């Protein structure tokens, strides 16, 4: 186990440097890319914080839709298994199984939950209601 600072603390220090020192002292394309870089670190920070909870929620949701499955032991295996289960879900949507009915309703609810989790990491500001 590593000493302090934590990964999050280290990344946040780099993010602050980009935002407070580089962005105000550059212009044009370099400034734009510095801003994108700082924002990217913010995504990573939010993902570090939320990933475990989000992966668990997605796994549980897919089990309810596709049936139970032994929970992989490591996070890397969990990601691989989630990919496989999402591919199965996509195949069933393509086959028309989510066009209507009770299972379809549950699919929409699940997809909405997962997309909400993803966007709360990548761009939480986007979750504000869109215009009518």
């Amino acid at each position: 186990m590593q000493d302090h600072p934590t990964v999050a603390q280290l990344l946040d220090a780099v993010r602050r440097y980009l935002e407070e020192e580089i962005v105000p002292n550059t212009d044009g394309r370099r400034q734009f890319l510095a801003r994108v870089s700082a924002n990217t670190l913010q995504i990573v920070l939010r993902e570090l914080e939320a990933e475990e909870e989000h992966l668990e929620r997605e796994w549980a949701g897919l089990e309810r839709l596709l049936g139970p499955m032994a929970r992989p032991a490591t996070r890397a295996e969990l990601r691989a298994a989630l990919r496989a289960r999402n591919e199965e879900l996509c195949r069933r949507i393509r086959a028309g199984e989510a066009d209507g009915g009770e299972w379809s309703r549950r699919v929409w609810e699940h997809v909405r939950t997962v997309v909400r989790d993803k966007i709360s990491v990548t761009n939480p500001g986007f979750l504000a209601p869109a215009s009518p």
Partner: protein
Amino acid sequence: MRAEEVEARLPEALARVLGASPVAVTNVRQMTGGAVHETWAVDVTTQDVGRPAGAQRLVLRVFVATAPGGMSAEHEFSVLRAAFDAGVPAPRPVALLGSADMGAPSFLMERVDGETIGRRLVKDALYAAVRPRVADQLGRIAAAIHGVPLSAELRAFLSAPPEGASGAEWELRRIEGIYRDVTRDPHPAFELALRWLRERLVPSGPHTLVHGDYRVGNVVYGPEGVRAVLDWEGAHIGDPMEDLGWVCVRSWRFGGGLPVGGVGKREELFAAYEAAGGAPVDPRRVRWWEVFGNLRWGIITLGLAAPFLRGHTHDVEPAAIGRRAVETEWELLELMEAG
């Protein structure tokens, strides 16, 4: 291409195509740079006997590479000319140059001064007076674009739905093909959108010229309003409602609260479109195209991230854009559930 190279090669090419000499080319600066096209701002001074010397402020577009399925310099120049001649506010096309002139196919058009950045339209005080009029202007201009006569020359190269297919059916098939090709991850939300769109395919009215990337961000505007429509490389023949749906896609609202460019209402867009001679607007058809537009933009973001994921570039911009597809997933779910 470097600025010095543009400065060195352009005068001779211009002297030939404009029939004026000598020619001074000054103030060369790159406006945007991409793997496919380079856009340069140049000032050109002609000094012909018997004609007053005048400086022309031009834009040089150099087609460094041809994107798969992309439009050539010659064809984009033709579309621009057809639009300009039909009275669409667009940069006046000046001259088409050959590959030998600038080392790659290129053309010159007039430079229209003004702002293109969408966020400034939504937020800057300078544009407060024009914001309430933008939807109206965009509606009128869309009607003008869709009224551009489809000459035999244009028909010869513009992509069009095959005989008997609607624009919606054709575009949906195309975008699904691109999606299957480009995606690295399963996207249940995109699969739901593909099903939704297929079940609700809308018939086309008469096919017209479609701009294909008609939105705030691709227009030049000033404090008095929209001055010119840019970026004609996506032009094709199809359902004109496609442009009306695309202009409402959330990604082109730049944080503004209203659907048309963040600053205008759909109803204003539609009323102006009809008043300026556009076909009657069925809001449900436009809605289909808005859903399609969000899916299309989501798939484009996957495509923009692909060079990074394939290791062709290590730039942070294409890396970051890979995480933007989910924004369109969210918007798609919102739109589809609203019906």
